C-alpha cells in the first residue's frame, strides 16, 4: 500500500481510469479482478481502493468506454464483468499517448535539473 490512488487524486488525474481500461484490454474482469490485476502487475506498488474503484467504474460506464454484464465466475458465483468497448479502446490509446508525453516531459525536466545540480 505504498501508493494510494484515492488519497492522491490530484497527482495524476485520470490515471486510475487509464489503468482500469488497460487492465480490461486482455479479458473482461469483475471489480475485484481489476483491483487484484492492477495490484499484481504493479508488484503491489499500486493499490486500488474500493472507494475509488467503483465510482470510477460507474464513470467509465457512463462514458460508454466499458460495458458491464452479469456472468458466472469460475467458482460459479454471480459477478458483474466489465468489458472494454471500441470507444474505450480508442480512449485508452488517447490517454496512454497523453500519459507518455507527460512522463517524457517530466523526465526531461528531471534530467535537466540533474545536469545543473
Amino acid at each position, binding site marked *: 500500500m505504498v501508493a494510494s490512488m484515492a488519497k492522491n487524486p490530484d497527482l495524476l488525474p485520470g490515471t486510475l481510469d487509464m489503468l482500469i481500461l488497460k487492465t480490461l484490454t486482455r479479458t473482461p474482469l*469483475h*471489480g*475485484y479482478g481489476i*483491483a487484484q490485476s492492477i495490484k499484481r502487475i504493479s508488484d503491489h506498488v499500486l493499490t486500488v*481502493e*474500493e*472507494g475509488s474503484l*467503483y*465510482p470510477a*467504474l*460507474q*464513470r467509465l*460506464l*457512463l*462514458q*460508454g*468506454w466499458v460495458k458491464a454484464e*452479469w456472468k458466472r465466475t469460475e467458482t460459479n*458465483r*454471480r*459477478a*458483474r464483468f466489465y468489458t472494454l468497448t471500441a*470507444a474505450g479502446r480508442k480512449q485508452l490509446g488517447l490517454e496512454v499517448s497523453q500519459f507518455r508525453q507527460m512522463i517524457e516531459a517530466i523526465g526531461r525536466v528531471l534530467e535537466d535539473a540533474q545536469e545543473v545540480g
Partner: protein
Amino acid sequence: MSVLGRWARKVAILIRRNQFADELKEEIAFHHQHVEEDMRARGMSAEEARHAASRQFGNTLQIRERSHEVVGFRWETVVQDVRFALRQLVRQPGFAATAIAMLALGMGASTAIFGFVDAALIQPLPYAQPNRLLDVDESATSPRSNLSYDDYQDWKAMNRTLASLDVYTGMGYLLQMGSVSEPVSAARVSDGFFHTLGVRPMLGRDFLPGEDRPSQPKIVMLTYGAWKRRFDGHSDVIGRSVNLSGGEYTIIGVLPPSFSFAPRADAEFWVPLLDKSNCETRRSCHNLDGVGRLRDGVIAQAALSDLKQIAAQLAVRYPISNHGQGATVQPLSELIVGRVRPILLMLLAGVGLLLLIACVNVASLVLVQSESRRREIAVRGALGATSARLIRQFATEGLLLSAAGGSCALALAGCLMVILRGLVPKAMADRTPFLGAAGLNAHVGFFLAAMTLLAMLVLTGISTVRGSLRDLHDGLSEGGRGSGRVWRQLGGKLVTAELAVAVVLLGGAGLLGKSLYRLLRVDIGFNPDHLAAVNVMIPQNAYRNPEQLNALYDELERKVREVPGVESVGFTDTLPLGCYCNTDWIRIPGKPFHGEHNDVMQRDVSAGFMKTLQARLLKGRMLNDFDDAQHPKVILINETLAHTYFPGEDPIGKMIGGTTLDAKSMRQVVGVVADVREAALEDNALPVEYFSIRQEPDNFFGLVVRTAQDEKALLPQLSRTIGQAHAGLGIYGETTMPRGSPSRPGRCCTSFPPG
C-alpha cells in the same frame, strides 16, 4: 462519448435506480467476500479476516453513495434532501408548525403593510411625469391656504417657472335623474386641469381653453366610476345632458379608470369653473387649490421664489385683500400621501421589528432543535456523511421552513390587506383612494420573495454555523448531554437582541396608546351620547329667498320633533367634529388693526343647536328664535375666541365685524359658550363664532338630533321624515356621534358654496 449519450444513460439508471442500487450492493458484497477469502488464505482466522476486510473496505455505504453520485443527477440528491427534510419536519410537527406559523406571521404582516406602502409611496401617482407636478397655494396665517380667483389669474399670467397652473375646488350638486334627486360630489376646475395632470379622457374630449369662463356652455366630464354606475357604461353618453342642481350640463368626456385625484377623491362630476361663485368675485375670498406643472429644467424652489415674488407684488398692489398673503408649493405627492406617510412608515417599522422577532424566535428554535439532534448528526457523520452534505441537509430544512412560511405568509398577507383596507376610516379612505389599490401585485410578490430569501439565508446561515462549529465526533463522545456550545454561544445573544427589539416595539405601542388615550379624553364640549346627525341639501331653484328657507327650517324642525324618541333638534351649516373650514376674518372695532388676518371658524346655527349638543353657556345668552332677519345681527363666540380677542375683558355687548368694518358685517356679541370641538380632535381648540342661521339661511345644512333611544335606529326614520317634508331634498351623510371619533365621512373638505 456524446453528452446526449451520457444523459440518456443517466436517465436509464434513474428509471431503474432500485436495480442499480441492488446491483452495486451485490457487486461490492462480492468484492468484500473475495477480500475476506484472501485474508483467510493468508492464514487469518475467519473472524480476523472479516474485520480486516471491513477495515480495508471502510464505509461501504460511502462507496455506494459516491458511485451513485457519479451516475446520479444533481437534483436527485436535492430531492433526497428535500424528502428527508420533510420527514424531519413531519416527525416534529410541533417544531415545524411553530416555526412556520412564526415566519408566516412575521412575513405576512410585513408584506401586508408593505402592500400599502407600495400603493401609497412607491407606485407613482397616475399622472404624466408626476414628479414635475406641484401643489400650489397661498400662505397666510396657516402655511397653506386656498388661492383666491383673482390671485390665481394673476399668478397664472405673471409666473415664469410653471408650464401651466390650474385650480380646482370642491362642489356639491343635487343630481336629478328622473324623479330621484341625490346629492353628489363634484369638482370645479380650470380648463387646463386635466392637461396639466397629463390625464386624457377615455371617451370624448377634454375641456378646451376658455371653456371655464363665466357664461360659457355648461359641460361636464364623468369619472369612470360615475359613468359605470350612473350611466351603465354606455358609450353613447357623450353629448347627453345631465341635470345638476337644476342646470343642464352636456357630457363631453369620460375619465379613464386609472384616474383618481385624492384631494377631490369623491368627486364624480368634473365641471369647468364657469360662473363665479360669490366667493370668487372677491380677491379676499379664498376657495381654490392650485396644481402646477414645472417648466423643463426648473426646480420647485425656483417656482416658490417666483410665486413669492408675485405674491409680494400683489400685496403691494392690493393691500387690503393681500396683506400678508404669501405663496407655498410642495410636490403634489406630498399633498396626497404626506399625511399617510408617517403612519405607513411607522407601521412598516413596527412589522419590520415583528419580523425580526419572528426570525430570532425561529432561529432559536432551530438552534435548540439542533441540540436535540446532535446524536443523529454524529451518527450520520460516522456513517459517512460529509460535513458539507450535512450542512446542505440542514440548509434544505431551513429552505423548506422558510418556503412554507412564505407560502402561508402570502395567504395571510392577502387576507390582512383586505381586513386592513376595511379598517381605514372612511374619511381617510376618501382622501387616500390609492390605498384601495393595495393588493397582491408584482411589487408585493417581489417583497415577499425577498423576505423569504432573507429568512432562508438566516436559517441556512445558522445551519452552516452550527455545522462548522461542531466537531462531528463531539456528539457521540459527549453522548448528547447538556446544552451545547453552539447554543451557549449564539442563544444568549439572540435572547438579548430579541428583548431589545421587543422593548422598542412595546415602547412604540405604549406611546401610540397614550396618544389615543389623550385623543379620547379631549373635552369635545358637548355630550355625544344619543346624538344623530344628517346632512340636507335643498334644490337651489326651489327655495330662492331667506323667508322660504326659514319656513322650511321651521317645518323640518316641527316634523322631526314629532318623530318618537326625538328630544331636541338643531341646525348647523357644518356638523361639529368636521373640519377646520368655513373660516372668516374678523376685526374688533376700537382695537389696533394692521391688516392682519384674524382667522376664526364661522358656523351658522339654529337656536336649538347648542341646546341639542348640551353645550355649556359661560356668559350672556344663547341664540334664540328671535335672532332673525327682523332683529339686529348677533353673534355667539366660544371661549377660545373670547380669550384670544378679548383678553381680560367682558366681551358681552362688544361688536365684531369684517376686516373693513363694513356696517353690514357688524354683529353684537350676546354670549360666550364653552369650546365645542368643530374641527378634528387632534387640532387644538380654535376660535369659533356662531351666527344665527335665521340671519344667514343657506340651502345646505346639517341636522343634529338628540334622542332618548338608540340613535342608530333613529337614522332611517329621520331620513324618511325629512324626505317626506319636501320632495327633492338631498339627504346624505347620516351618522351618529360616537364618543371619540375624530373623523367622519361626508363633511370634511367638501365645501358647498352658498347658492
